[in-house]
């Protein structure tokens, strides 16, 4: 299995928060999930991997080349990340938003929607199933549609690797599966390397090829999710008791509910 991203000895300390000595390798062309409790450093790790944050120590290489040796432009052609949906976006149509993904290929006065970009835009909007919304204003879309439009923007960047920070948070359950299905399909069809921070272990296990677990800023486990996901894993990583039951390939985490907490 070839690696897309190789990180070794990543350390970072900011106040009380620290990441300690993280070594990991992310396989090329696969879906990788990063899981762990709140505050375990998942998003921070993602930001380090994509060079938004400089680690105190450690090395990152992408496609076998040290991340420091990429120029800004090369980097933006190689890897990108979709941040959590926090910042409000300006009022745009869906197509205008997706076209921002073409910015790394542009000189200063070139329009973002040139003739050669149109094919890319059509393609990514088709993959994400938002073609029919392309002339709608972004802010009038539902949460799931907005997320798909943002993912389309990241895809329009045509990088080999896309990192997503909690792509399903804030979405209702139907939209969560819609987004996961879509990412899975895009991965299988295009061989795009996808890394995502996920909160839902069940989804991570059902859709991803590799699962990386963090706990208190350290790498706690790494491997195939269906092998990794055990009762012990839940106890070690999250400090709670639960049993894993499988419905076909889909794991269901059944927590042990203390008797006093209601129910019949």
């Amino acid at each position, binding site marked *: 299995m070839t690696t897309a991203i190789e990180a070794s000895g990543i350390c970072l300390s900011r106040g009380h928060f620290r990441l300690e000595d993280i070594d990991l390798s992310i396989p090329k062309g696969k879906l990788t999930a990063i899981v762990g409790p709140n505050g375990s450093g998942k998003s921070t790790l993602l*930001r380090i991997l*994509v060079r*938004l944050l400089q680690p105190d120590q450690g090395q990152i290489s992408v496609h076998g080349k040290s991340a420091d040796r990429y120029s*800004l*432009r090369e*980097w*933006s*052609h190689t890897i*990108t*990340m979709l*941040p959590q949906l926090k*910042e409000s*976006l*300006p*009022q*745009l*149509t869906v197509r205008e938003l997706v076209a*921002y*993904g073409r*910015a*790394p290929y*542009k000189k*200063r*006065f070139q329009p973002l929607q040139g003739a050669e970009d149109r094919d890319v835009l059509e393609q990514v909007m088709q993959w994400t199933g938002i073609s029919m919304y392309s*002339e*709608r*204003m972004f802010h*009038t*879309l*539902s949460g799931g549609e907005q997320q798909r439009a943002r993912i389309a923007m990241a895809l329009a*960047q045509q990088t080999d690797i896309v990192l997503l920070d909690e792509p399903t948070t804030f979405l209702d359950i139907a939209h969560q599966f819609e987004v996961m299905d879509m990412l899975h399909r895009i991965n299988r069809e295009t061989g795009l390397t996808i890394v995502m921070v996920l909160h839902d272990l069940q989804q991570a296990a059902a859709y991803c090829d590799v699962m990386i677990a963090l706990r208190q800023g350290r790498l706690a486990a790494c491997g195939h999710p269906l092998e990794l996901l055990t009762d012990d894993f839940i106890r070690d990583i999250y400090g709670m008791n639960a049993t894993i039951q499988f419905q076909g390939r889909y794991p269901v985490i059944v927590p042990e509910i203390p008797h006093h907490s209601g129910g019949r």
Partner: protein
Amino acid sequence: MSNTDLQQKAHRVLKQLRNSQQSQTDLRQRARRRLMLAILLPVLLVLVSLYGILHGAVSIPLQELFSVWLHGQPSVYRTIVMDLRVPRVLVGLLVGACLAASGALLQGVMKNPLADPGIIGVSAGGGMAAMITMVMLPQFSYLLPISAFAGSFTTAIVIYMMAWERGASPVKIVLAGVAVNALLGAFTNGIMVIFSDRVQAVLPWLSGGLNGRSWHHLEFMAPYAIIGLLLCLFAIQPANLLLLGDDSARLLGQRVELQRFMIIMLAALLAGTAVSVAGLVGFVGLVVPHMIRLLIGEDYRFLLPFSMLGGGTLVVFADTVARSWLDPIELPVGILLAVLGAPFFLYLLKRKGTVLS
């Protein structure tokens, strides 16, 4: 399918339909408004400029204006038009365009709807430099525009350096701006008290006005203003990308720190140019870009040129009203703009779902 299922489905479809209709109207409205402003603003600018040239202590009939231009014989009207009003109107247009463009750029890159040229130290720095020149070195008073400009620009750089710590975040720039503004304001006031006998000459400049602005002033400011306004072309794409947020812009291969620095310096150049000839004219940089943004959204390809046109029109209009309203007293245009601008801004604040939400 049960009844509730059907109801839910119908509800969802209806909601989607409403959203898409809403979106259609939004889109059409946006296109219509862009077109409307693209036609209306230039027309308004020409009309207001004519109004500014014809109107004042002496009103000039329109046909006289043509004869002044066509025949060019020396007359009282010719003196008034060519020596007093035309340069004043042109200075007003440039001052307004510079201030509005400066405000539009700053609000975007600082992610702060209240950002205006005052916040990056342009007013305070320019004010103090002008004060020092006029009261302490009166023999060099002809250097006033240059010193005000230098003061504005230096203060902007100092504020940016103060805010720097692994990159300058917009919040830090605003806070550093507030602190440095307060400090320079105190110095300026101190100088006013110590040299109270010489302050009279500075007051009109401090309150901002175009009184007595002539070809000489225009010649001084025009090169800077035109260069600054043209440089705005380079700011459009970076400013648009910065609207997506720093992280997203960085991931799209943008040098966010460098771009923010360059845009702030450009804003300082524009505002410093305006301050150097017109003194402290407030509210144009704040109100005009907000109005335009309210109408056509944040796309800098439209926001910047429309703000320039709107700013120039507003300043010339306000100046014409200010000098003819309380005739024979000429109000400094800065005072009138504050009187008009402040309530208007409060109205914007109170209106639901506008710029600040």
